[in-house]
C-alpha cells in the first residue's frame, strides 16, 4: 500500500517538473530569392598588329598567330570589318606609312584580305569558312561558356605579280575591328 502511494507521489512530482519547464520551440520563416545574370560578352586579342610576308612567289601569304579570346555568359557572334581610316578599297590592304598613316598615293593589293575562323567544338564555337573582308563578316558564333574561349584563325592575302611594290617607308596596311555581340542563344 505504501509503495503504491510513493509511486503516485513520484508520478505527480514528475508531472510537476514537466509543467514548470516551459517548452521553447524555434520559430522559422522562409524566403526565396531568384535572379538571372545580365548578358555579358567581351573580346580581346593577343596582339594589336601582325605581319604578312607579301611575296608573289609564295602567294598567298598567311598568318595564324592572331588569338581572339571571347569571354561570354550567353550566345554570341563575332564580326570583323575593315575600319581603315579613309578606306577607298574596303577589304584590301592599302598604301600607308609604317605608322599606319594612309598615303595620298592610292595603291591597293589586287585581292582582298581573307579570313578563316577555326571552329572549337570543345567550347561550342563555330568558325566561318574562308571569306573576303570586302564587307563586315560574321566569323564566329558560339554559346555560353564557363571559361574564356580562345578562337584561332587564318588570315590570308593573295599576292599578284602585278601588285605594286611600294617605296621605302610605306607598307600595305589594313585596320580590322573585331566586334562581339550577344545573341541570347
Amino acid at each position, binding site marked *: 500500500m505504501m509503495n503504491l502511494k*510513493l509511486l503516485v507521489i513520484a508520478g505527480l512530482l514528475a*508531472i510537476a517538473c514537466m509543467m514548470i519547464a516551459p517548452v*521553447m520551440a*524555434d520559430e522559422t520563416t522562409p524566403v526565396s530569392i531568384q535572379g538571372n*545574370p545580365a548578358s*555579358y560578352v567581351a573580346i580581346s586579342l593577343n596582339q594589336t598588329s601582325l605581319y604578312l610576308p607579301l611575296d608573289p612567289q609564295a602567294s598567298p601569304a598567311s598568318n595564324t598567330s592572331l588569338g581572339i579570346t571571347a*569571354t561570354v555568359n550567353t550566345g554570341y557572334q563575332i564580326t570583323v570589318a575593315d575600319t581603315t581610316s579613309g578606306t577607298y578599297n574596303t577589304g584590301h590592304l592599302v598604301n600607308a606609312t609604317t605608322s599606319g598613316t594612309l598615303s595620298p598615293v592610292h595603291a591597293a593589293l589586287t585581292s582582298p584580305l581573307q579570313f578563316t575562323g577555326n571552329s572549337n567544338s570543345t567550347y561550342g564555337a563555330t568558325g566561318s569558312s574562308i571569306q573576303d573582308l570586302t564587307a563586315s563578316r560574321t566569323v564566329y558564333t558560339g554559346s555560353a561558356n*564557363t571559361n574564356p574561349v580562345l578562337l584561332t584563325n587564318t588570315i590570308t592575302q593573295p599576292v599578284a605579280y602585278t601588285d605594286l611594290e611600294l617605296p621605302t617607308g610605306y607598307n600595305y596596311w589594313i585596320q580590322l575591328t573585331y566586334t562581339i555581340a550577344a545573341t541570347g542563344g
Partner: protein
Amino acid sequence: MQDPDRICIKILTAAVLFMLLYSLPVPAQSIGLSVSGTIADMQLTPGTTNQDSSISLTVTTDAGNWSVTASDPLVGKPTGTGGYMTEYNDTDARYIAAPAFKVLSDPFGMNTSPDPDPGITGYNGTPGAGTLLVYSGSKSPGTVTLPIIFSQAVTLTDPRLTNGNKYRIDILFTGTVLE
C-alpha cells in the same frame, strides 16, 4: 514512531502544494519571425558582387537572449548545391535535376552590418550547406525590424539562363530563444 500512512499523507500533501505552486502558468519566452517578402528578380550583374536589401526581417520576442540563424533547406536541390543559387523552373516549381542544372560559381551570402541596436549583433557570411548565425540579441527588443542584405557575386562567365529558368535559393530563418 509515526504511522507510515501519515508520513505518506504528509509527503502527498507536500507534493500537491509543490505542484500548485510551480504549475501556475509560467509564461514561456517566445520568438516570432517574419520577412517582408520575396525577391523574384534580383539584379545579377556579371563581374560584380550584387547586393539586395529590399527585404527585412522582423523579430518579436520577449526573451533576453535569442538568435536568428539562416540555412538553405536543400529541399529538391541537386547534391552539392547547398548555399548556392541553382537553376530553377518557376513554371514547374522545381529545381532542375542533375546533371543538366546550372549553378552560380560563388556562394550566396548575407550581410547585416551595421548592428541596428546596441543589444543586437549582426553577422556576415555564407550559410553554405550549413547554418549561419545572422543575429543574436542580449536583450528583449519587443518587436524590431532588422536589415538583411543578400549578396551574390557573379563571374563574367556564370551562364545567363536563356530557357526561361532562373537561379534560385531558398533561405530558412530560424529564431531561437536561448537559455
